């Protein structure tokens, strides 16, 4: 693949000029999200004295497998444990011959599903670690705790709530549960992006809890949509219309935005004005920046939605320095993992799509010499039940996750592998009759997982306890998978 050499104009001065020229709609109002100025300058600092570590550019990508990925079939024990796994999973068990073997120095042999060959490759190269049996927890949790709702995160096992629990690490849904640990990281790291006109926290798949902060803090770009300046709002485009007409229209539209943002206007009108204002600034800024980079020689498969998202993310990482961003947070999402039925047909398709997208992403980052400063981690609603419902699986709790990139302390399995036994399984969140349910109690929490990533990004230690409320209840506060 050939990547064009970036041709960077002196855009920095233009940024500053523009930010001074922002109309009141952008700067005066904080309602309906955050003003562009405070987003750009990170003025929403929590006031904590501790400074973020901003040196070097770093990007963190949350790869969310929506629906609840059956990670117990993506990474499988080999050897004695395989037969236990096989007996429990029955028709849904992956054949031993379909596993790509890797080993952990202290935990023995495992296999990635053969359709996850890039994951195996990264593991062998020391760029990927498997983080075993992670899930939302309030603290260390054992089987005896499972009957006591007070000891468990709120509303386990429903898709939307457990997605939220993963993304907010708060153990609850209501109140401050609306804010994500990515959003909190963005606030802490804002000082690293002082030169940026656009927030360094960008979703390539729409709204999510992970990036949500009290002042908004992230923008959403769609890989389906070209980044285009807005006709009518921006008088420099739509040249077939008379200059006078474009100028007059633009002026009035800006006035409408200002007036709609004003204090005392209906709240939803202010929301509308806020997102519309952001759209005009963000699209102008990004269109201008992208003009300075030739397109990568990577044409994503239009049918692979994840690949298209990762392609957009790569473009934004490539441009991070000219965007003035030292720290970037990305959210990408791949759906379809809720394999209640036909799992043996569906899961291979999903893994193939995932592996292809990740493979191309990794190749592009390597070519751009960015692999060492980009870390990607997986997350999913939940792992799935070890039991079958005939030809699929149901909502579980803990599941394996994968962290990869040049900065990962890779080639290891982090944390204990749970028991796969269907009788006398100490890791099982038993059903109401005390019988085997196949829902595995996590042994490592989202908070431990997130805090390890947050430290790598440069979040000050003092900020972690409020970001991850469960963290202090665990002895191990860093899972050690980042170098």
């Amino acid at each position, binding site marked *: 693949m050939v990547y064009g050499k970036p041709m960077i104009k002196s855009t920095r001065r233009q940024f500053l000029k523009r930010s001074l020229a922002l109309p009141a709609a952008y700067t005066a109002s904080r309602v309906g*999200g955050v003003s562009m100025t405070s987003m750009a300058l990170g003025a929403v600092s929590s006031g904590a004295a501790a400074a973020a570590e901003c040196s070097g550019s770093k990007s963190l990508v949350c790869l969310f497998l*929506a629906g609840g990925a059956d990670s117990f079939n993506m990474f499988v024990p080999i050897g004695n444990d395989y037969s236990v796994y096989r007996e429990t999973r*029955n028709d849904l068990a992956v054949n031993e011959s379909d596993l790509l073997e890797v080993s952990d120095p202290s935990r023995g042999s495992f296999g990635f599903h053969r359709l996850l060959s890039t994951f195996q490759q990264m593991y062998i190269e020391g760029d990927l670690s498997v983080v075993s049996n992670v899930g939302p927890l309030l603290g260390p949790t054992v089987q005896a705790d499972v009957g006591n709702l007070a000891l468990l995160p709120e*509303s386990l*096992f*429903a*898709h*939307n709530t457990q997605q939220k629990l993963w993304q907010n690490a708060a153990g609850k849904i*209501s109140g*401050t549960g*609306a*804010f994500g640990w990515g959003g909190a990281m963005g606030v802490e790291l804002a000082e690293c992006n002082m030169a940026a006109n656009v927030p360094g926290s960008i979703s390539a798949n*729409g*709204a999510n809890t992970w990036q*949500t902060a*009290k*002042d*908004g803090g992230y*923008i*959403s*770009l769609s890989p*389906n*949509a*070209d980044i*285009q300046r807005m*006709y*009518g*709002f921006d008088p420099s485009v739509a040249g077939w219309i008379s200059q006078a*007409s474009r100028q*007059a229209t633009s002026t*009035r539209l800006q*006035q*409408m*935005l200002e*007036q*709609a*943002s004003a204090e005392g206007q*209906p*709240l*939803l*009108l202010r*929301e*509308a004005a*806020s*997102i*519309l204002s952001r*759209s005009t600034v*963000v*699209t102008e800024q990004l269109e201008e920046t992208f003009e300075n980079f030739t397109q990568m020689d990577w044409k994503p498969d239009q049918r692979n939605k994840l690949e298209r998202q990762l392609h957009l993310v790569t473009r934004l990482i490539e441009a991070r320095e000219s965007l003035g961003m030292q720290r970037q947070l990305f959210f990408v999402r791949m759906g*379809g993992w*809720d394999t*209640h*039925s*036909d799992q043996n047909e569906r899961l291979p398709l999903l893994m193939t799509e995932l592996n292809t997208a990740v493979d191309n992403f990794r190749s592009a980052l390597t070519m751009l010499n960015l692999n060492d400063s980009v870390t990607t981690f997986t997350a999913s609603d939940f792992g799935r039940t070890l*039991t*079958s*419902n*005939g030809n699929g699986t*149901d909502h579980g709790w803990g599941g394996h996750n994968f962290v990869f990139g040049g900065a990962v302390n890779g080639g290891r399995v982090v944390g204990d592998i749970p028991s796969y036994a269907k009788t006398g399984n100490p890791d099982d969140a038993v059903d*109401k009759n005390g019988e085997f349910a196949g829902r595995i109690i996590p042994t490592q929490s989202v908070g431990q997982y997130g805090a390890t990533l947050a430290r790598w990004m440069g979040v000050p230690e003092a900020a972690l306890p409020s970001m991850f409320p469960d963290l202090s209840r665990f002895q191990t506060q860093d899972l050690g998978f980042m170098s």
Partner: protein
Amino acid sequence: MARNRANEREDHLHIFKYFISATLILIALVGVFIVGCSGKSDNPDESISSPTPSPAGADNSPVRLDLPLDKTEISVDNARLLMQASFGVTHASLALANRFDSPAAWIDDQMAKPITMHLPKVEAYGNASWSQPRHWVWWETAITAEDQLRQRTAFALSEIFVVSDIDYTLSNSQHAVVHYYDMLASSAFGNFRDLLEDVTLHPVMGIYLSMLRNEKADEENNVRPDENYAREIMQLFTIGLYELNEGGTPVPVGNPKPAYTQSTVEEYARVFTGWDYADSPDWRSNKQLDKISPLVPNENYHDSQSKQLINGETTPAGLNAQEDLELALDSLFNHPNVGPFIGKQLIQKLVTSNPSEAYVARVAAVFNDNGRGERGDLGAVIKAILLDSEARQTTASMNAEAALNFGKLKEPVIKAIHIMRALNAIPGTNSEGRFHLFRKTSDAADQIYGQSVQSSPSVFNFFSPTFQSTNNAAGGEQKPFYAPELQILTESLLSVASNDLHSMLYTTNNRSGRAHRSAMLDIDAPMGMLRKGRNAYLEHLDMLLMAGTMSDTMYSLLSDFINERIDVSLVSDEPESVRARYIDRELAGLDEAALEEIVLDSLFMILASPDFMVQQ
């Protein structure tokens, strides 16, 4: 008090009707005079026949589309009703609505209209794995169908009882997906209990949430019943996650009690076992299978042991699949959450994102009893939602806090259809009679608007009824502020959608003379209105596009914008009334190109404004 308001309204209506009649006669005379004098009119379509007869005894004369819409209290109310209860105001639909005695009469008329079925039109295209025709027919129906209230309600129901052709089996069963949509439309004003059973036994839902061929436990092989449908029918289709008060708020506030537990899910998973395709020769057959007829039981796979239901009752052991199903659906249907849970979501889809608890409670009360002892009458619920004082009040007549919270962000596709309806869009010359967008065909609307009917990413729809803006989320459960549609309004999609509209309006309008695939917006009518004068024009656009809710500031911005296009130096020292008359005279005399430019710019400013994103 409601009664008094109603009476008062009646009086207004009577007076207004006399006024209308008198005005119409006058206008007719003047119209004849003008046409007679000038020999031509601005608009070739200056009158149409009313497409359906108005109620008995009412005015059946053709609707005059050459006359601007006036901003009267009644007309504003009807325009707001049309925004809430249809896919948007058209000149004709508002003029017709104004002839009804009351909003209730309009609703009754709408509910009685024949159902526009999508399936016959989709089937005419052939192949059931071809996904595009389903969208073409949906857009055409939304834009042109007469049974607007039913179609609007069906769309709302399709976002509650979600199925999506993103599912790999359903992507090849498009006709069945459309049949499911028609079923929602047919049931839109029926009973909720019937709808619940129809949904449960529709093969499309059976496939989507894997209730189809769900089988009883096989302990030897460690197989348990599939929990998918059991969980989602509770969480999404009937009662929700938490216990609710009658106002739809999870209780106790701040620490709500779960409405059910994992073991409830397991019990209902056992209920929903033993259902197969109607024409299935055996449980595992892969033959051509009927995805339209309701599922049928196969008792060999049904778990006939007793189950613990949510109402505390236990089903007796030995019941068959149908008997178990009836008891289980009854138990959910009769749960006190259903009225507030479903009622609030329908309010949010049609009227306002943050209804007061009292509003939800009034609607829930109608769900619980339609006044004739029937529970679950959806027609009565829809009517209660639309006729409620909170829906009919304008923000001007609310207290300040209620006014700040009222309204909803328009769903992006509904906003697009509002525009097409208001500006009498017709299919582009190169579209083979279909309504398409500028950059994409309407089947790819999700790439512009972030949503496409029955193609949501999961059973959780495109957006959640409890999505909160980041700005207001801090209120938490004590004071949540919901903005569901905001969940899919992303920066890049907003800009693409705005640009698509811009291209459609400026470059493929009906006067552009361009052969194009994009739907063509008709700008002749607004040009005709502008010739009648600035205020008449702006008032007309206010009614047509913003249901009479345009703010004074927006009105004056537009008014100033038009003034700037006219050289007023000759009358700069004259009083405002003189200047206004002068401007109107100049507008009437402008050449077509200059007039067109003003119309395009002013239309775009309204349609691209933040104000147009909100339904008040």
